[in-house]
């Protein structure tokens, strides 16, 4: 058999899955399944195979199957990952150990209760805040932003809220009042947005116990993020911004205004008119 044929051959894999059924279990237990792993199969594919052919009671959360929705975050062979984004072959082991994300309560089997994460997230007001209440409630249009301004926060906007960084955070494991990497990086994402004017509002939470001050600099959040976001960097930048604010050295800046229409151009003969503007009209 040549090398390519060997790669195509199904391989028997053992799944060790952490089970917890709250109505009957006092504590989580481990259950083992044997499946035939086809080339290209992801950890999520394996879980679906188990659910569809062996054990329909197995509970896990999944949706898009393409690493976008952030639903299938789980602990795979000891590391928080997206099950749909992790091929079994890349684990380099015949045993796939799957458990729910740590640092969260378990709803059932592999389903973590993400409410604690989203409560912290919500407390930091992860949306554009405008100083004008009327504008906040009824925005009149799009706000100006240059490419350079956008790059200040762009990488943090790739976060899909899967909870992998929260599961990897050693500070969150011991300090339940710590906001955690995802909410803090998202607070920074909006603080760094030139269209936002909510720094002082978020500061009310960030300056206290829930702020970035307990971060141990372990950097695990950045290491495990399946989208390449660096929450550890956001936390350090946030500290810098908060210190500048404490020392009165934070440059006050009004949030960017509405996109305005350019002056009307004089039509030139032989040149077709530009299409109608979609913004700033």
């Amino acid at each position, binding site marked *: 058999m040549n090398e390519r044929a060997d790669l195509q051959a199904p391989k028997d894999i053992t799944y060790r899955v952490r089970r917890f059924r709250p109505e009957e279990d006092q504590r989580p237990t481990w259950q083992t399944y044997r499946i035939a792993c086809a080339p290209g199969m992801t950890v999520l594919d394996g879980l679906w195979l188990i659910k569809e052919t062996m054990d329909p009671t197995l509970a896990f959360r999944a949706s898009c199957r393409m690493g976008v929705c952030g639903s299938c975050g789980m602990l795979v062979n000891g590391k928080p990952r997206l099950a749909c984004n992790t091929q079994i072959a890349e684990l380099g082991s015949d045993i796939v150990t799957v458990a729910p994300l740590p640092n969260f309560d378990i709803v059932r089997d592999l389903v973590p209760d993400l409410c604690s994460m989203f409560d912290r997230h919500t407390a930091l007001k992860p949306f554009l805040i405008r100083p004008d209440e009327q504008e906040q409630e009824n925005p009149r249009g799009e706000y100006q932003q240059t490419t350079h301004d956008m790059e200040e926060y762009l990488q943090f906007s790739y976060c899909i809220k899967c909870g992998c960084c929260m599961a990897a955070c050693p500070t969150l494991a*011991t300090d339940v009042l710590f906001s955690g990497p995802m909410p803090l990086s998202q607070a920074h994402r909006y603080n760094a947005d030139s269209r936002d004017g909510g720094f002082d509002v978020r500061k009310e939470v*960030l300056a206290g*116990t829930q*702020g970035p001050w*307990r971060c141990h600099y372990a950097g695990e959040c950045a290491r495990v993020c399946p989208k390449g976001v660096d929450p550890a960097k956001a936390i350090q930048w946030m500290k810098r911004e908060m210190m500048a604010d404490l020392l009165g050295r934070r440059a006050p800046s009004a949030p960017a205004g509405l996109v305005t229409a350019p002056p009307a151009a004089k039509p030139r003969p032989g040149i077709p008119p530009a299409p109608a503007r979609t913004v700033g009209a």
Partner: protein
Amino acid sequence: MMRDQSLWFWHVAAGVAILLLAGLHMGIMHLDVILGVGNPAGGHPIDWANVVARGKSVAFLLSYVLLLGAALFHGLYGLRNILFELTAARGLRALCNAILILLGLALFILGTWAAVAGRQMALQA
């Protein structure tokens, strides 16, 4: 009680102060041959004459007190962080704050008194 934002700032500031003052201490006590500062009587830095000369100096007295304050704040803030990770109960955290503030103040007063008393002895020597 200061908020964590201010406490963290002073924690870092105390760290910088420790770096400078401990650097000064190391320079005077261990690099005396190279630097030749803080030991006006010559010889070894812990010779009695040098100790008395430094003890008479107001600048050294201030540096001792400042180093003491910085080290106490820096260390006790770190200890507070460790203790806070053991409990999230507000009552226990408030108790930790109270104990650490009292402990820090007591040690600071004791250390400052020792430094001032040492200067009085040096002036009488």
